[in-house]
């Protein structure tokens, strides 16, 4: 056979791999876009992302630029608006979502926190999935004592009182956003996700293609990296979406208790309103702009990531598809 003829027909494997990846992305997108709930979630996330990453920097540089009014400069996220007579003030043209008891602009706080919530949720979820995938596949593959150890550990983590633990921890160390993401990622990485990914890896482990690679002399790490992980990857990705929700939610709970050392977050906004006594009794209806925007933002963003997860679920599990 003429070698030249073959060489002419070959494209570089990298470009072909890229094309294949693009093609499978398009196929999966088609399935995903058929799930209404997933697309809804994606839109909510996109809107939040635009608001946090594009709209806020623009507004901060123009409208909310710390200005000198009289003697004092005003920062809408931290500072006190002296031009406002009474704080908290209801929504007005000057402050679209009103101000909080400390005279800070609610909309500015809301937008300022958005990128941080994204960063926290995604970092925590990445750590969780990274640990969960490795532990899950390794314990499924090797079995025996390794498996028993990690599965019992997962049982412990599942029963672990997570929020009380963080409350105690916050008394001992300063928890900022990065540390919180690390802690949430580490703890949930050893929990339920390992059990799910392990069970998936157990299914893949006994497939003949694993034996076929063994016959060719494949080592255990080769099998885990090249055969088992690619086959559990879609499920890891799905669980990543659910973990973003969990991380954002935990952050909101902790800031609501005032246990985090952070400048601003949605949970902290509700905390401020609560400690100043504006969510008590009939005040709750009267000062709605203090708790409704951050509350709705938490609910919407958590829900959106969950919806995306549900949409991905249909891509990953063909049984859920209605076709």
């Amino acid at each position: 056979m003429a070698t030249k003829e073959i060489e002419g027909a070959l494209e570089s494997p990298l470009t072909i791999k890229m094309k294949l990846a693009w093609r499978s992305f398009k196929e999966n997108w088609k399935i995903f876009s058929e799930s209404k709930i997933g697309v809804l979630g994606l839109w909510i996330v996109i809107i939040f992302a635009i608001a946090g990453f594009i709209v806020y920097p623009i507004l901060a540089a123009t409208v909310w630029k710390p200005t000198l009014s009289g003697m004092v400069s005003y920062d809408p996220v931290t500072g006190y608006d002296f031009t406002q007579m009474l704080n908290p003030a209801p929504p007005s043209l000057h402050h679209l979502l009103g101000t909080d008891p400390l005279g800070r602009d609610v909309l500015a706080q809301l937008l300022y926190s958005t990128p941080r919530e994204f960063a926290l949720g995604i970092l925590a979820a990445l750590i969780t999935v990274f640990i969960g995938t490795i532990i899950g596949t390794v314990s499924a593959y090797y079995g025996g004592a390794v498996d028993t150890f990690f599965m019992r550990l997962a049982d412990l983590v599942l029963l672990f009182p997570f929020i009380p633990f963080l409350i105690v921890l916050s008394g001992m160390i300063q928890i900022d956003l990065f540390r919180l993401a690390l802690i949430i990622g580490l703890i949930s990485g050893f929990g339920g996700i390992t059990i799910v990914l392990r069970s998936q890896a157990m299914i893949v482990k006994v497939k003949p293609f694993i034996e076929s690679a063994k016959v060719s002399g494949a080592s255990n790490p080769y099998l885990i990296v090249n055969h088992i992980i690619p086959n559990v990857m879609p499920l890891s990705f799905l669980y990543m979406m659910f973990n973003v929700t969990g991380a954002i939610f935990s952050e909101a709970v902790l800031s609501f208790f005032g246990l985090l050392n952070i400048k601003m977050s949605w949970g902290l906004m509700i905390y401020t309103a609560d400690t100043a006594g504006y969510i008590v009794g009939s005040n709750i209806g009267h000062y709605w702009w203090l708790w409704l925007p951050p509350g709705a933002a938490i609910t919407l963003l958590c829900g959106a990531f969950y919806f995306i997860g549900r949409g991905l679920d249909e891509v990953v599990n063909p049984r859920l598809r209605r076709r």
Partner: protein
Amino acid sequence: MDEAKSAVAQETVLKVEHLKKFFPLRKSPFSRAKSFLHAVDDLNFEIKRGEVLGLVGESGCGKTTTGKTLLRLYEPTDGKITFLGKDVTHLKSAQDRKWFHSKSQMIFQDPFESLNPRKTIFDIVSEPMNIQNEGSLKQREERVMEILKRVGISPPDAFLWRYPHELSGGQRQRVAIARALVMNPQFVVADEPTSMLDVSIRTQVMTLMMDLIADMHMTFIYITHDLAVARYMTDHIAVMYLGRMVEYGETEDVIQNPLHPYTKALISAVPIPDPEFKRKSLQIKGGIGKAIDPPKICRFYERCPFATERCGKEEPPLYDVGNGHKVACFLYEKDGK
């Protein structure tokens, strides 16, 4: 074809002596095994270069376990495997493992499960080269194209970057064969490679394998429960029953003149497409048992219509009745040597 075969030196490629594989049966993972499943019990045979040995028997008789133990997917409990003059029973050093795994391969039964659904055909076929670090990417591509063409996937470049789910069953099995042969192995175990295929494609795939065996002078173990397939494909047949070899000989010899009662029953169960055909059919009782701690008697004792008292007390050895035809039955003690 016979001439081509005799031209090759009649070198013994694989020699198996007293091969045993027992699986421990434990009640809990911490207790010691009290009983063992004798999946393969005292197997002896040798295969010369270019020869095809058929392992025949009903399901659960240890055919697949034998194949997998020979390829070292299972650690043998006892016995000795010699491959090209080298003892490969316990591949201790990494060098030996690399050498053995680059020279032996397996073709699996189910082409739908034996190809990773997330890999392209190129990745699948080039995997043995990838694992063994053989050749540059360019060389691998050329070799993959060549072998795909050889197994009848053409044009190969149209299939190189497809996924297994885009191929038909026959094409998949061809890809699996290509993967097994990409490194030019000396010894291949084929575990019922045609049983999952449509009857229409079966013969094509079998003919392809016959051609490849003759071309590449491979030593082949063909595992099957189908005697017609075994007759078509193999030079020698080993009939297994509950982990033991009950009859061994040249294929035509065994099929025309079966000696062991179990082989007789197997052959009489093959349907003949002739309504006028009258054959002495041999009825055997019961079903296949389990080889869990079997007593040292003939394993076929309970089902055998010719069983004598002696069969229930002793284990029959393999008697050679001439022409390399061996049978493990006391009925042939006088003929045997």
